[in-house]
């Protein structure tokens, strides 16, 4: 049973405290007494080898396997993987490409290992976090208790471009707003995982997790079996189960459909993949129609009611009656259907209010407020520059911070202080001073590194450390379900911290070991 909004008297004190002093709130959130020493100053953690070059205990077997390999064999495995991906059509952004050329998300064959103990802690922390965020979404579109208690500033929420008034009348009986969450984690120099960002709208990447494992099972089957790596293949079944569990009350055998923007969307492969694995219909806006406040899909034999819609379309395009009227990607009247309780949406309208970068700073306070627990997972320190004292502190040493725009900023890019030029820093300073509410600052995290097959021009491929992050996927249905591991993204260029696909990133298989 999910924890709902709770307001025992004791909370009022904590809430009041958390709201008063911003800097204190940050520190009470993180659980790390002195982040500066442990993260910014330290060398990045190598996840496979310790400072003396010895393999870490959970990586011993894989390290031995790699070291015992003939030279060139690993590169061969990498090439085999690449061909398998191409053959299986695990490509992205190609449907829109008239020439028909296929691109794959680069894959590194060296698996990233997470020990059972580490995972147990992560899993508990992720469940706690997503439950609190879910409660938060329900609260801000419902009673608004956390705002009344001033734990989170009201203007930050109501003024957020992601706040959707249309969500106010919609109350799913299951209490689930965030059915699928992708929580981005980074590992600091101290070895701990920190939450970098929440993705609560239409998080993607899970198809790569499943495909990566499929390929690794062909490349290194004995190793996977010997290490008893926890399986990921049941994700689609878990997702289907979660979706069915959030169906409107009283529906015996709910029909689930996956709404895609269509073949020109860069994540279309994942939409196809998931719909096939889940055994649900893949629909576009034009396949749907709302009649008498019910949602239907247009089949060859007539209208068939849809009870749960897993939508990979942004709020803005979801319903031309309520949101963008020019949208062809959604279906007119969907919001009314949801309000009438005749269909459920995953994820709910307006969850973006909870993954805003400014709201991120308050997530530890949310965990305390709704769950009456201390956060298990620390967040990366996040400073709201709208607070004058905080702003002064950051601007004094702007070159040490990563400046990120919030939803309200209108689209400026991220400025990485330690890497920025004097001019870029001056421009960032100006922007901050002009519109401080539109920015947050975080310390630059030295992401952990992992041995990755690299292609130096001319030389033969060799293993070299590259920065990685982790995106686990959390499902909320009648109960929480967490995919073991998640997507490990790796920045393929030396020194680069950029892990996403469009900018030179790749992925690794993530192995969570059985206890």
């Amino acid at each position, binding site marked *: 049973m999910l924890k709902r909004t709770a307001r025992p008297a004791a909370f009022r004190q904590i809430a009041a405290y958390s709201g008063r002093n911003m800097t204190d709130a940050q520190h009470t959130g993180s659980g790390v007494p002195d982040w500066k020493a442990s993260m910014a100053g330290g060398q990045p953690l190598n996840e496979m080898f310790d400072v003396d070059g010895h393999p870490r205990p959970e990586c011993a077997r894989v390290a031995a396997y790699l070291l015992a390999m003939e030279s060139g064999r690993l590169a061969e495995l990498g090439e085999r993987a690449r061909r398998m991906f191409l053959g299986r*059509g695990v490509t992205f952004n190609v*449907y829109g490409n008239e*020439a*028909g050329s296929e691109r794959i998300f680069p894959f590194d064959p060296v698996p990233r290992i997470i020990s059972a103990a580490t995972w147990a802690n992560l899993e508990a922390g992720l469940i706690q976090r997503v439950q609190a965020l879910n409660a938060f979404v329900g609260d801000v579109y419902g009673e608004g208790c956390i705002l009344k208690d001033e734990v989170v500033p009201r203007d930050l929420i109501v003024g957020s471009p992601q706040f959707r008034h249309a969500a106010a009348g919609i109350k799913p009986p299951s209490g689930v707003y965030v059915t699928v969450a992708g929580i981005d984690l980074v590992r600091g120099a101290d070895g701990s995982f920190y939450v970098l960002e929440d993705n609560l709208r239409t998080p993607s990447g899970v198809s790569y997790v499943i495909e990566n494992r499929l390929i690794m099972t062909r490349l290194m089957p004995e190793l996977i079996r010997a290490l008893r790596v926890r399986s990921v293949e049941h994700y689609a079944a878990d997702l289907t189960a979660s979706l069915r569990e959030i169906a409107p009350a009283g529906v015996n055998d709910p029909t689930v459909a996956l709404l895609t923007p*269509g*073949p020109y969307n860069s994540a279309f492969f994942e939409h*196809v993949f998931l719909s*096939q694995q889940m055994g649900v*219909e893949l*629909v*576009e806006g*034009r*396949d749907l129609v709302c009649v008498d406040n019910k949602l239907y*899909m*247009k*089949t*060859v*034999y*007539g209208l068939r009611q849809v009870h749960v819609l897993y939508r990979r379309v942004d709020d803005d395009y979801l319903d031309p009656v309520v949101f963008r009227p020019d949208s062809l990607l959604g279906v007119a009247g969907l919001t009314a259907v949801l309000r009438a309780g005749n269909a459920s949406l995953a994820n709910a309208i307006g969850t973006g209010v909870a993954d805003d970068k400014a709201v991120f700073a308050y997530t530890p306070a949310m965990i305390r407020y709704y769950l009456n627990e201390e956060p298990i997972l620390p967040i990366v320190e996040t400073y709201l520059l709208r607070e004058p004292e905080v702003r002064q502190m950051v601007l004094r040493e702007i070159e040490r911070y990563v400046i990120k725009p919030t939803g309200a900023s209108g689209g400026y890019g991220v400025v990485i202080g330690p890497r920025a030029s004097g001019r870029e820093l001056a421009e960032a300073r100006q922007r901050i001073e002009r519109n401080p509410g539109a920015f947050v600052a975080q310390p630059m995290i030295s992401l952990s590194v992992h041995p990755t097959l690299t292609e130096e021009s001319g030389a033969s491929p060799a293993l070299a450390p590259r920065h990685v992050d982790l995106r686990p996927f959390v499902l909320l249905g009648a109960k929480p379900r967490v995919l073991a591991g998640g997507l490990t993204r790796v920045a393929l260029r030396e020194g680069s911290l950029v892990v996403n696909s469009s900018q030179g990133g790749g992925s690794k298989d993530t192995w969570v070991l059985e206890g």
Partner: protein
Amino acid sequence: MLRRIAGDLFWTARYLERAQWRARLADVNYHLLLEVPPRDADPWEPLVQITGEAELFGVNYSRADETSVVSFFTFDRESPSSIRRCIELARSNLSPLRHLISSELWLEVNRLYLDAQSWSAETLARAGMSAFFTDLRDRFYTITGIIQSTMPRDLAYDFIQVGTMIERADSVARLLDVKYHYLLPRIEDLGGPADLRQWTAVLRSASALEAFRKLYGNAIRVDRVVAILLFDPSFPRSARFCAEQMAASLARIAGEGQAVTAPAGLASDHLLEVLRTGSAAEAIADGLHGFLLNVQNESAAIANLVFAQHMSLG
């Protein structure tokens, strides 16, 4: 199955069938003219007539000769039914369904599409017309073969069948109609060598020459050509055969849904009845042109009805 998917499958099939017919027609016409020097009647004109786009042709080309007609027919980007355009449309209808069809089918259609992008007068000249069209014909056979060998006989297959058969029935009627009237010889030529050659060409265009000989021997007569191409129940490109397949597919499509007699099924049953009970002699006596026009119209009507019933999104 979503209506949109059914529509995409239906149209993919129609465009592939259309492109095939065009390729075969151009090929046969070309060979016909190799055997016989052109007379006063323009031998390439009928091809333009068959597409039903004489007007559009007239806009872009001043005369119907080998160069202009082959260009219009094969790779003209303006012509809505050039072979290249049909292939493009087949591919674009098939593209969103990639994950629902066999990878071989997609790869083959896509390969054909990519090659068609480079077609020009030069590529044709370099390859040689005969080789070009023979190769093209074989590529369509490959695609048909892949469909037949890899597609389970399910709803998707039935929609492809319906699209294919409607297009085929229309095409064979159109072929006969144009040739019959264009070839309407002077009385003195009836049964003469020119006449014979033209009818042989008609049979070749439908890949029916050998089947004809099996049934009738070498005596090519108009009524027999009409018989095999319109009324024969076993020849796969006869209108009758198409109507049988169409009706069977529509019955299977309707069978799984509501127990209502579908308008499209009724219309296709009617066409089937006409082709089952009719004969070449009667059709010629009553006016072949009218009969052929009727087949084309009924095919179009069936297409509209099945589209409205199962595929339209509006």
